[in-house]
């Protein structure tokens, strides 16, 4: 019955061929064919996941002697369902959205090919199949983003995506080559088995194999998930059709988190790589969020929001919360897909009516008009700091009594705590007739979110990594020296608490309007130019192209 996964992968490819062959038929029939195939793929993927839930285990099906291995396990079945579901929504949306566009059959054919390739990527049981699918995703995305063959800007930005993806393909290729040379097999199961037997193998220049391969896999994940310095393609790839943006932001960009999870048996043996993964994820989350806040274009703002979310997802991997990253990518995929698909509607509606609601919440959020003379600030500040912490501790205690021994869990607690504190602080500044009611509602909502996140996250943990020892090993690999960790925790806590207290105190005493400091203006200019990263890349590529022209002239073009 588990062989059903082969059908899940094959169906979109068959549909892609049939859809293209039906190009001359009425559009409705073409769309019907593609949508029907995606429905069936989705249903089969759901059955697959049910099978994995009822009888956990790894099954492999070989299509060739050296490669073409399809892996049925908890990660592949879960990801197959996610991809099939997002693809189905995008297909359904595209039926009417793309109706006026030329190349209707080509669009559905490309969409089907992309779905099939993504399914193949998450189910790949060997390195060659994984590399093929990984590489093909970049190519197909290039043609989907550049669907409008009249638009040069669309292709310009599609090219940015393509070249960044190619940059990311190459480290993965090197990682695959190193693993093959070390363990003599392309099969992931064989490699992971041999790796757990001899994790201390060395590779080129006497470097530890797991560290080198781990770093290469992480770089491949960074490029795919738009991590800082490899992110410039993401916010600019909006010239493609909206359904493609939805598919990209909801599904394709999450591949980095999947890749790190796929190589979890390798990462448990690393000692330093996950710390770098955490730092890169953190930097991306901060830069992405800051850039998102300064955009005045809804789609670009969504693009940077995705970058921030991807940073958070990679950061979760960096603290050892691998399964939480998978939960995060699913949750993010669903909400970001919805946002993209409704963005067009929002823009259309805004053209007819500005839609500014006449309510105090909107005025508060947009006009930033905080209430004055609130309740005792010290009490509120204490509540802001203590309530989220109490809820988070309780939620984590429910799933694992020894959670405080895992550094990763504590780091994530920190983020949750800051978010909760920010929420309460925002509520404190709002105009309201009944502050107690508002606070109760805020605390209840926060509790529901935290409990849901923690319990579902724990469910994912148990499903994806049923072996408790293995789960503990991941956290250990991500951990740092206890003394350093404690010092960092105390330091960061002190800074955050001091910051909040200062903010509350200034709010209570009324902020004086000050002239904007030139440093802030400089910082804003830096953000508005997106930290000059894309400018730098453009400058570098132009210099390289000029050099190539010069060489060709010298060598007379032969």
């Amino acid at each position: 019955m588990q062989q059903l996964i082969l059908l899940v992968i094959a169906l979109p490819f068959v549909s892609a061929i049939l859809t293209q062959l039906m190009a001359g038929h009425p559009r409705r029939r073409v769309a019907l064919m593609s949508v029907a195939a995606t429905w069936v793929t989705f249903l089969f993927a759901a059955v697959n996941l049910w099978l994995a839930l009822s009888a956990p285990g790894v099954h492999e099906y070989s299509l060739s002697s050296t490669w073409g291995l399809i892996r049925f396990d908890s990660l592949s079945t879960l990801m197959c369902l996610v991809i099939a579901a997002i693809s189905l929504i995008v297909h359904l949306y595209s039926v009417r959205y793309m109706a006026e566009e030329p190349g209707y059959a080509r669009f559905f054919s490309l969409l089907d090919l992309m779905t099939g390739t993504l399914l193949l990527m998450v189910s790949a049981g060997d390195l060659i199949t994984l590399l093929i699918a990984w590489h093909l995703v970049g190519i197909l995305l290039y043609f989907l983003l550049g669907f409008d063959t009249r638009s040069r800007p669309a292709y310009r930005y599609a090219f940015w995506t393509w070249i960044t993806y190619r940059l990311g393909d190459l480290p993965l290729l090197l990682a695959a080559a190193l693993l093959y040379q070390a363990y003599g097999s392309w099969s992931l199961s064989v490699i992971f088995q041999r790796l757990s037997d001899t994790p201390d193998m060395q590779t080129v220049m006497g470097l530890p194999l797991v560290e080198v391969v781990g770093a290469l896999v992480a770089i491949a994940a960074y490029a795919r998930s738009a991590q800082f310095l490899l992110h410039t393609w993401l916010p600019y790839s909006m010239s493609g059709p909206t359904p493609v943006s939805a598919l990209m932001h909801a599904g394709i960009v999450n591949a980095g988190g999947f890749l790190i999870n796929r190589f979890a048996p390798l990462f448990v043996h690393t000692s330093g790589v996950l710390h770098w993964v955490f730092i890169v994820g953190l930097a991306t989350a901060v830069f992405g969020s800051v850039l998102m806040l300064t955009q005045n274009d809804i789609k670009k703002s969504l693009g940077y929001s995705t970058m921030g979310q991807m940073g958070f997802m990679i950061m979760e991997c960096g603290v050892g919360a691998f399964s939480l990253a998978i939960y995060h990518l699913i949750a993010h995929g669903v909400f970001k897909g919805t946002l993209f698909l409704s963005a067009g509607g929002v823009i259309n509606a805004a053209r007819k009516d500005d839609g500014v609601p006449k309510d105090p919440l909107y005025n508060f959020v947009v006009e930033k008009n905080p209430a004055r003379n609130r309740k005792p600030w010290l009490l509120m500040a204490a509540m802001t700091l203590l309530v989220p912490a109490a809820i988070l501790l309780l939620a984590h205690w429910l799933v694992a009594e020894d959670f405080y021994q895992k550094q990763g869990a504590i780091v994530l607690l920190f983020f949750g705590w800051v978010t909760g504190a920010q929420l309460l602080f925002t509520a404190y500044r709002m105009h309201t007739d009944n502050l107690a009611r508002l606070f109760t509602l805020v605390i209840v909502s926060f509790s529901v979110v935290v409990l849901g996140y923690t319990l579902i996250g724990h469910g994912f943990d148990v499903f994806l990594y049923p072996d408790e020892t293995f789960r503990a090993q991941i956290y250990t690999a991500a951990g740092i020296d206890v003394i350093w960790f404690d010092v960092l925790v105390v330091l960061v806590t002190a800074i955050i608490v001091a910051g909040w207290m200062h903010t509350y105190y200034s709010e209570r005493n009324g902020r004086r309007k000050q002239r904007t400091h030139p440093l802030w203006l400089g910082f804003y200019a830096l953000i508005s130019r997106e930290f000059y990263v894309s400018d730098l890349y453009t400058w570098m590529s132009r210099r390289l192209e000029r050099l190539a022209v010069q060489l060709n002239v010298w060598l007379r073009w032969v």
Partner: protein
Amino acid sequence: MQALNLILAGIFLPLFPLGMIFNGLFQHTRNAWLRAALLLLWPLPGVWILSTMPAGISNGFLIWALFSAMLYGFRAVVVRDFGVWIGFLATSSWSLGWVTMGVTAKPHDLLLQVLAFSLPLALLAMLVAELERRYESAYAGVVSGVAQAQPRLAVALVVAVLAVIGSPLFPAFFSMLSTVANAVNRVPTAAVGLITVWLLWSWSGARLLQEMLVGPVAGVRHRDISRTIAGLYVLLFILLVITGLYTAEVML
């Protein structure tokens, strides 16, 4: 004798500056069939010479070959004439034959690798001739908007370029993968060089394609290739994929 053999091998599996001989000849050949024949036959003497050489390939030649591949790959990035681009890609990819022999020393692998690039290049040369027949040149800037004007020809060009730059399922992909896998432990810097060359091909291929295919249609409309010819190309591409699968079985 050894030196002469090496020079001859350097001409047929081009090392810089000997690659100029092939490129000069290729650019002066205007007939599509002759160009295809040149692309298929030119590297074969080089394959034979390297396969029969008693001594292995020294590291010096390996570095020289990688430099040649990188140089031609880099120069191809700004090329706007499809004919010149084919010549540069042929030079860049064939010079990697030295690396293959250096790290595997298997003549069979060398032959497969050369064919993995020659076959799609020959196919591309035929397609470029179709472009030249319509537009009198295959120069980006003169030719644009092919995707709108001749969609069947555009699809064939895209697939052929993807095959040349080593995209999955085509023979060049498996051949490059095998060379990188064999080089990574023995000469790690060569492996990094190989993937850099691969990246340069992707850069140049995508750049050239989008300059020709994208954009508004030119004033004068030309006919697309017929369905029969398009079907023939589809068949040839399927054969190319089958060759790729065979390459994977043999080389990996």
